[in-house]
């Protein structure tokens, strides 16, 4: 018997690579793991807005109610380590976060964020930025200004930027009927 699946189509993704973003900084430390971003007991949820209600539950309880559209997460090393759960970037996206600035990212989270149409940006001086400061990010010029001070951001690889510009991997892949693999390319 057919039943309606729990999974629902996501909202149309807004482009994360154009315009200027102004918001409050939510500052996190090193090794923020995906269990902290969204605890395991909420993984039956898939709607970003529903997930957002539980973002950082138990580890930073003011986030879920306080984060606003345009706010930025600024973190230390290895942001998003741990599980491959895509619920983590979705929870942040549902909370209005479009951009995460960190000293470095864990591999799977970085890909998941890009695939979800979010922009993970590497800033080696992220440690200087403090919680609650107001940040302005010029998405095209990739210039981050926090309380008047400018921070350099590492460039996003061109291929990944294409995915983010498309609105995520789904939008990028939707138009493709097939891909040329490294194997096919030789044949």
């Amino acid at each position, binding site marked *: 018997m057919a039943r309606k699946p729990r999974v629902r189509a996501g909202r149309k993704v807004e482009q994360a690579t154009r315009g200027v973003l102004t918001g409050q900084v939510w500052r996190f430390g090193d090794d923020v793991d995906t269990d902290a971003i969204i605890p395991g007991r909420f993984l039956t949820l898939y709607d970003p807005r529903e997930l957002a209600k539980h973002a950082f539950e138990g580890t930073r309880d003011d986030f879920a109610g306080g984060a606003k559209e345009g706010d930025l997460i600024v973190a230390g090393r290895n942001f998003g380590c741990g599980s491959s759960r895509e619920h983590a970037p979705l929870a942040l996206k549902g909370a209005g976060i479009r951009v995460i600035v960190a000293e470095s990212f864990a591999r799977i989270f970085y890909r*998941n964020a890009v695939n979800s149409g979010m922009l993970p940006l590497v800033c080696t001086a992220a440690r200087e930025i403090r919680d609650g400061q107001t940040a302005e990010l010029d998405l095209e010029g990739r210039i981050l200004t926090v309380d008047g001070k400018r921070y350099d951001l590492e460039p996003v690889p061109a291929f990944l930027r294409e995915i983010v510009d498309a609105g995520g991997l789904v939008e990028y892949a939707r138009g493709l009927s097939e891909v040329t693999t490294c194997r096919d390319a030789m044949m």
Partner: protein
Amino acid sequence: MGATIVEKVFSRGCRREVAAGEVVMAPVDAAMIHDITGPLAIQKFREMGGKRVFDPGKVIMLFDHQVPADSIPAAQNHIFMRMFAEEQGIRNLDLNEGVCHQVVEERGLAAPGEIVVGADSHTCMYGATGAFATGIGSTDMGFVLKFGALYFRVPETIRVEVNGSFPDRVGPKDLILSIAGDIGADGATYEAIEFTGGTMVGMGMAGRMTCCNMAVEMGAKAGIVPPDTITWEYLKGRRNLDPFDLAADPDAAYLEERSYDASDLAPQVAVPHNVDHVVDVGEVAGTHVDQVFIGSCTNGRFEDLKEVADVLGKRKFSEGLRVIIIPASRAEYLKALRAGYIERFVEAGALVEAPCCGPCMGGAFGLLGPGEVSLSTSNRNFKGRQGSADAKVYLASPATAAATAMTGEITDPREV
């Protein structure tokens, strides 16, 4: 310049020479989805316009995180995935078989030289059978389901050579915890870790799985052990393949080379809340524990349960704590059952549950309440990982877990 084993795997998949640093769209040999990440992967596949998966025979589906269904939403996810399997002709192993990674290995679905992806971070475990295997998110998996390929940046490799015999009651989990403590939680980000040396050869498949499983805890994309006679022997009857040579060239370029002497090692414990915060068991001995969990894809195999049974002997677990033992798969459960271990564990006071992820993912059962302390043979001790964010999780070997379960406090397994 020679090639690393990972470069060779990608060169094999691409049918041309590929070097670390290159970004390639590589065909995948197998793709695994489970009940937590699968529904979203299927949704993404459909949003991408997917109608038929690239090859139903190369897609492995099973449920292990929330089984038997622990909530109505979990049951709905299972129904949704079963329907997809039926529609697509995918073999669904459902909730009968055990933890995904163990089952993939048992069925020979990740063989030497293959590129395997799974929508779970511990997919890197299949490096134990000489595959390049890596965990991906659900959207990447949607892409794989549609196209049978994925972009990969061919990783550089850190070579870890381990020699020497383990002291009594010290084993693969202590080794990998010690390595994680040295390399750090992000020390291998975007890289592969190749495990070599006499100790890796001698520890057999179960230990290799434990080590490769935890490569991701150092940020690595993959862990891999060069296939040898033990690998091919393990694959016999699981996969019909003729053995071939797959090893790094002697002049391969490594990002870093490390060596370890297993005979130096004491039992290791990762203390809350970081996997790379690792100490000798003596430093935390005496810490009160409310729950011991023995199981998971990291340490739920027959060999792990045998270690527990050996430490336990004819004695009992402490009545002052909860002892939860979960074999990693139905096959491992049966082996332990036939060896008499399950009966021993139940007699000694443990709860033995059917194969699944159990408390490891903190979503199903066996959750910790505020202020509680657990010692676990699983792979992550993040804040809130096994329940309350105010609980603490220590990670250790099956031997240390057994000793701790017998006393109710963290205990050196050499002292019971």
